[in-house]
């Protein structure tokens, strides 16, 4: 390799990588705010669908089921608390199932939504189908139980996907509701104050860790 070659090779790599980097950063600068907005909107939409009657759903704190970051929310209508929404995780067959659960003031489940999962396609992924999710409406803590035979009042397992059904019902949803109830016993669940947030938030997190 002659000196000329070395210079040419160096220039080649430097220029191509520099130009590539500049193009990527330009595209990133243009798209990242849109991506962020999309994600926020998707989350807001999911929350609204879980509590259609609420006119404001505000974050109330954070907790960590299975060591993962999750949030819980207070839903209000005309200034009055009508229920809560909690994000929770369940350990499924091949993934942690990221779930949103909404409950009314008596801690009866209203609706659930599966935000993210990687269960077996064709079997476990039926947890996101309406026929499974709709079973949760009106269930309280004692009725969040998976049964394999048709027993009214409980959650019927998806055939071929008992582990995924259990993970949603007895892990994600049940622990989420339990957590909310324990939180409620300690005091009224209120939305996080924006200013004093840091102090309160720290306190909340400690409690959440103890429970998880």
């Amino acid at each position, binding site marked *: *390799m002659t000196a000329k*070659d070395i210079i*040419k*090779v160096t220039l*080649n*790599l430097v220029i*191509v*990588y520099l130009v*590539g980097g500049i*193009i*990527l950063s330009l*595209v*990133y600068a*243009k*798209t*990242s705010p*849109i*991506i962020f907005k*999309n*994600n926020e909107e*998707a989350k807001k939409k999911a929350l609204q669908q879980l509590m259609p009657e609420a006119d404001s759903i505000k974050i109330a704190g954070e907790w960590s089921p299975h060591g993962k970051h999750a949030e819980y929310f207070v839903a209000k209508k005309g200034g009055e608390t009508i229920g809560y929404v909690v994000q929770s995780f369940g350990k499924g067959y091949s993934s942690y199932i990221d779930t949103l659960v909404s409950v009314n003031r008596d801690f009866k489940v209203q609706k659930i939504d599966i935000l993210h999962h990687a269960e*077996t*396609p*064709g*079997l476990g992924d039926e947890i996101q189908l309406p026929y499974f999710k709709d079973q949760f409406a009106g269930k309280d803590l004692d009725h969040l139980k998976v049964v394999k035979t048709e027993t009214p009042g409980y959650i019927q397992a998806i055939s*071929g996907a008992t582990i995924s059904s259990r993970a949603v019902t007895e892990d994600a949803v049940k622990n989420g509701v339990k957590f909310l109830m324990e939180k409620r016993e300690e005091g009224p669940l209120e939305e996080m104050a924006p200013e004093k947030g840091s102090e309160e938030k720290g306190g909340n997190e400690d409690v959440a860790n103890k429970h998880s």
Partner: protein
Amino acid sequence: MSQTNTVSYKELIFNGIVKENTIFKLALSLCPSIAVTNNLKNGVLMGVAVLFVQVMVNLTISALRSVIHPKVRLPIFMLVISGWVTVTDMLMAAGFPEVYKQMGLYIQLIVAFASILARAEMFASKNKVGPSMADGIGMGIGFLFALTVISFFRELLGKGSLWGFPIVNTKPLLIMILPAGGFFAVGILMGFFNWIDTRYMKKGAHASH
């Protein structure tokens, strides 16, 4: 294949779709094609993403071919490929969030597609921009076609639905949507297309097999 001055664009595109179909003839990029094809929608979307990246990569490499030093061509090809994949990834996340939710994982996989690097090395780096684009379109459409056929059969047999809409109310052959079924589908279809090839298209020289 190599001397393009005598080959028309039409032939180049045809070559990518039939004679050198990435999956059924060259047996390249099988891993991602099995991973994403358990339903029709994913298969088609993945095919479209690959088509776009393949064409853009071929165009870029071919336009730069006179300034790329042969000793460092591979790192430069890789940068061009990963650059276009990242751009596609970000544009899709911004423009089609619903689609991206399902496809996000797979798009980044395109960086490692052997088929794209192979076309850059074998074709685009040796040919003019026009033919390289034709080659990219042909290869991309060939890949899209293959993924569509595979995922069509896998979703229909495994889930009894197409594009998410139920066709029959049972799951006739559940194994088809599991990873093992992917191998069955690819193998059987590959055999089928090669059978057609040997039976009805004997005349053309196809050196690749």
